[in-house]
């Protein structure tokens, strides 16, 4: 077994969101950072929301923690009242050095997982996540690469290398499949292919689009796919300076 990969599960704890069906099974081998957050409008002080909702939020979060822990995950929880969900999620990713963030949607018990492979960048983190979650579980993994300008040969080299590394982490050679798609927008290709799978693993998209909690591309895929999407996070920047002072 590899180390448990750290996965952030953000839940809007007071707006009826809960741990969706199938997610606990998906995260059995993960170390889950369970973030319960509540976004209050600018007119309201966060402390004001805490006075009124702390007990309810804590109760629900404990309930969720139990569900995840029963399925096998190790869990730590954070409860945050905020004006900007985005900022809170980003902070959690950095503070806990999360490998991935889960877009929490319901699914069946995970049997087939689609892994979108972008290129060589960030492959280490992808291997750590996929190997950590699905190594020795018998879950089937399909690697999907959307080719742009490179030849099929190059794409195959990329995927074969990845297969070899995943096998090292304990995933059975026979349960890894590879697919190469061309001439479509990556998010369409991923969303189209995803319908046959129980969950999707993909990378973050353009970092400049900070208005999207999970990144634009991942958000679009999640909207079409309606199942859980694990968004692999980029290597955190090494400087300790706070990234946004605006």
């Amino acid at each position, binding site marked *: 077994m590899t180390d448990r990969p750290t996965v952030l599960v953000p839940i809007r704890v007071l707006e009826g969101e809960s741990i969706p069906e199938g997610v606990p099974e998906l995260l059995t081998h993960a170390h889950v950072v369970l973030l319960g957050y509540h976004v*209050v*409008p*600018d*007119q*309201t*002080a*966060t*402390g*004001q*929301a*805490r*006075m*009124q909702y*702390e007990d309810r*939020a*804590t109760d629900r979060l404990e309930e969720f923690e139990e569900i995840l822990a029963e399925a096998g995950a190790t869990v730590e*929880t*954070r*409860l*945050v*009242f*905020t*004006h*900007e969900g985005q*900022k*809170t999620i980003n*902070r959690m990713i950095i503070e806990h050095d999360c490998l991935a963030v889960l877009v929490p949607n319901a699914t069946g018990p995970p049997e087939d997982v689609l892994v979108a492979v972008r290129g060589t960048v960030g492959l280490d983190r992808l291997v750590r996540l996929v190997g950590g979650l699905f190594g020795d579980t018998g879950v089937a993994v399909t690697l999907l690469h959307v080719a742009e300008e490179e030849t099929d040969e190059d794409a195959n080299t990329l995927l074969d290398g990845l297969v070899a590394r995943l096998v090292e982490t304990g995933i059975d050679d026979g349960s890894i499949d590879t697919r190469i798609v061309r001439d479509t927008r990556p998010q369409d290709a991923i969303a189209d292919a995803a319908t046959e799978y129980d969950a999707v693993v993909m990378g973050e998209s353009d970092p400049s689009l900070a208005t999207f909690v999970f990144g634009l591309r991942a958000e679009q895929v999640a909207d079409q796919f309606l199942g859980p999407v694990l968004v692999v996070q980029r290597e955190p920047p090494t400087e300790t300076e*706070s990234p*946004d*002072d*605006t």
Partner: protein
Amino acid sequence: MTNEDEPTDGSGKNIEGEAPETEPDADTEDVTVHDDVELERTIGLVGGLSIGIGTMIGAGIFVFPGLAAGNAGPAATLSFAIGGLIALLVALPASELATAMPRSGGGYFFVSRSMGTAYGAVVGLGLWLGLVFAAAFYLVGLGFYAAAVFAELGIGLPFDPVVVLGLLFGVALTALSIGGTENTAKIQNIVVGILLVILTLFLSYGSLDALGLFGRESVPGQFFSQGYFPVLSTAALVFTSYLGFAQVATVAGDIKRPSRNLPLAMVGSVLVVTVFYVLTIFVATSAFDALALERLGETAMVEVAREFVGLPGAVAILFAGLLATFSSANASILSASRTVYALSRDALLPRKASDINLRYGTPHVALLAAGGPILVLVGTGEVAVLAEVASFLHLIMYGLICVAVIVLRRRDPDWYEPSFQMPGFPALPAIGAVASFGLVAFMQLPSIAIGGGVMALSYVWYRYYAGSVELRGDF
């Protein structure tokens, strides 16, 4: 930076048996930590500056120039400079206190934790009502601008438009802040950005023109045309233009990297608006003489702009005036609501006052506690009295903020560890306190009477409602 030194918890109970909420466990650059709960800090330096500047700039530029020039002549520039200096003398100790206690409630919080509940209650209730007076003043100003728009369009109204329009805007603003879930902070930033661009263009052109660069002969006028005393009484009147920096402190709990951003936002916004105010009066008094400005009244700047750049200038300033007074009124209503929350958290007002409604997630009781009295005051339409009472109540708080710094530095309790220390201690805070209290003496009698009445009532309320509540941190 993590600051784990917090004032000790308040004790005692109010008449309804409610005790003050416990203090948080720690402040970091990103959050305030309460047991297992984190409160995210989400306003950066730009947001902080925009609260400060956005609250202040409406009054000083778009309402006061006519009144001030009428009272003091061209020396009104000096009145604004004096106001700015006093504001700066208070912004420094307020910054020091805010970095030691970056919590919602601002000046009220500092005074109650350093000097005890009685002072705290007078300042806190005074701050709430001071903001109510300020918001009413801005709304009347907004009414003048809206009425000027109708006049410009040549539409006659069958009623006195100023008060009616002010009331309408007051109702709309209160309803918007209760029912609106838009990102109000972002809108505020944009509004302030637009204002600063318009004003910078107008004032640069106006100043150069006034200095004779474009061949204008400026209106001759003696600098102290109305004598020396009106300079000070005008400073007292226009001090309402400098109330906004303290609003930054009322949302101190939301400010990211408080140890850096709070001092920069407070001192920075005072410096920025002081420069804009002084230039505005300079430009205005070079376009018209004092008496003409006084006749033009609240919307004098529109005529000044028309004098310099014709109709487009007048339209731009009309538009800017609407935006500025609207944003000032909006910011004051929100700050008043935060203050009500801070008081109710400390059991000085019923806990119910900070309730949040489930539908919009907004504090409707606190917002109504601001919006309701504001409408009553707008109904009076008394610009000068509203402005002075607002200034009076703030100046009392400002003076006590200066005293609070002296008290805390002298007693030096364990939990008092400001990361920003103001220069010139103890002389500067002492001068700040004397100047703040002193300025009150130059106000009109009715304003002093109303302000004093509010303070007395606040004290009586505290004795009646929360006499056994103790908020002062252990020394």
